[in-house]
């Protein structure tokens, strides 16, 4: 089976640009994977997503979505993808239902009728079900401008899923949402992933949102600087550490030297685990400890370290 997303040596230079906004990016995303594209502002994330979703032409390279070439088979690609844009793309003059109806007609799911009650029964049933699923209820018939930011995002997601896309692109979907709305939205997306074999391609600044991804790709200045499963990226860039202390620091220091483990002192002893388990190290120390804790690296630690190294 062809990968859901296949990007090869993608290059994009804007017409008035002097440097490549995307400069030789390559990656694959398998069907059903949760993939996160990370990077600072201006790294080339949105440009990449725009090319992948056919709204922007590429300069060179190739991109295939669900086996279709984005240049030669743009229409087929558009049928296979759903997109939640960075900035809200709902028409504020319309109701939630009218926005969904507009989408459903553009994606050839139903014939156009100017009024909801004239739409086919199957459409009306689907709207009622979707409105219940996301907790909108009768609010779906209210003008979009009266809905909360979280509700609007959910509305965009159910709209983006109406045509059963194989790949769902989420371009910073939680920007502008409060903490509760963010959590609620991610719970909904997690539920969706369980129900459908859908590939998700996420771009975000919130590193914690990418922790659950199957694969992450960090880009900077248009180039891929790290790619792999989050735990791989983290282990390559940030070390897991054990923080310990003892009443007899001299004895503990001697013991750590004897064990030949790398450590530093910062008011207490910080031991780099480098593949060892915390249990192995602690088990090898015979004096009583007054402090014991481990620190696992987050994706954010890895990301910040990587960007700092790039800037240096």
């Amino acid at each position, binding site marked *: 089976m062809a990968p859901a997303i296949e990007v090869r040596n993608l290059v994009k230079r804007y017409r008035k640009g002097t440097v490549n906004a995307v400069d030789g990016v390559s990656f694959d995303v398998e069907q059903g994977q949760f993939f996160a594209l990370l990077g600072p502002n201006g790294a080339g994330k949105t440009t990449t997503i725009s090319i992948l979703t056919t709204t922007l032409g590429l300069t060179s390279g190739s991109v295939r979505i669900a086996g279709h070439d984005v240049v030669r088979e743009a229409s087929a690609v558009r049928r296979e993808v759903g997109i939640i844009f960075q900035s809200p*793309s*709902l028409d504020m003059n319309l109701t939630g239902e009218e926005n969904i109806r507009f989408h459903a007609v553009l994606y050839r799911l139903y014939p156009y009728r100017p009024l909801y009650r004239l739409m086919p029964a199957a459409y009306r049933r689907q709207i009622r079900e979707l409105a219940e699923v996301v907790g909108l209820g009768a609010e779906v018939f209210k003008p979009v401008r009266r809905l909360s930011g979280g509700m609007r995002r959910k509305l965009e997601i159910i709209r983006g899923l109406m045509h059963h896309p194989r790949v769902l692109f989420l371009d910073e979907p939680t920007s502008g949402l409060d903490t509760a709305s963010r959590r609620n939205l991610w719970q909904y997306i997690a539920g969706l992933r369980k129900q459908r074999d859908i590939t998700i391609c996420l771009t975000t600044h919130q590193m914690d949102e990418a922790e659950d991804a199957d694969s992450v790709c960090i880009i900077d200045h248009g180039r891929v600087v790290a790619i792999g499963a989050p735990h791989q990226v983290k282990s390559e860039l940030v070390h897991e550490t054990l923080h310990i202390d003892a009443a007899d620091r001299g004895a503990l220091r001697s013991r750590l030297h004897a064990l030949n483990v790398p450590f530093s002192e910062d008011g207490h002893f910080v031991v780099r685990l480098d593949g060892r388990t915390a249990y192995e190290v602690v088990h090898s120390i015979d004096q009583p400890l007054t402090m014991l804790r481990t620190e696992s690296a987050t994706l954010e630690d890895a990301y910040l370290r990587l960007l700092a190294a790039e800037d240096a």
Partner: protein
Amino acid sequence: MLELNAMAAIAGRDLLKFFRDPGRLVAAVVFPFTMIFLLGGTLQLNLGKSAGFNFIGFAFTGFLGMTLFQSTAQGLTSLMEDRHNDFAQEVFVSPVSRYSIVFGKIVGETLVALVQVIPFVLFAWMLRVPLTPAHVALLVPVALLSCFMGGAFGLLLLNTMSDTRASNQIFNFVFLPQYFLAGMISPINVLPWYLAALSLLSPMRYVIDLARGVVFSGTPEYGRVVLLSPGINIAVLAAMFVVFMVAGTTLFVRRETSR
């Protein structure tokens, strides 16, 4: 059939937006009232006799043509506003042909323009502009042609704009001069050669002259008011429509993907 559905949805959205905008609805009544009752009436009283024709009918056809042409043209430029509001993204990532998007938009803005000119016709009829049912029936295809012409012109303009600010400024440079070059409220039978040449380039001139050809047909004033025969006006408009549509759509589609 599927593309027709998409075009109907795009057109339906424009009409719905118009009916949901109280400001535009009020303007659709106040503007024709001001132009026909106040401006047309004043001109008729002061200039009608010396001009030797019905100035209210002259102003009515001028504003009718201008509204149909300009409303559709400016409506097309709202594709720029949609891009600004990011709603256009939803349209442009859908599997609908770019040509259907453009045609749907023209049909939608045509419907909006047609609704907007209904008060014009009513006010003109109330002020005894000699409008027979045959005139009104003939004005329908003229109105459609005028709107399509405006849509094609708007599409071409859209390709010259970089943002919504540019779309607002374009009024002063593109539409305002045409008010005078097309003879919207002032006769242009006699013009210096350079203005006559510019007048011939104004699409609005042919739209307004065609409407006057219908409303003044069979009246003794016809020769003093109408510049070209309806056949020539239609031929020029049809040629301009084809050129503007082909160039505008090609540029638009290319611009959408080759940024």
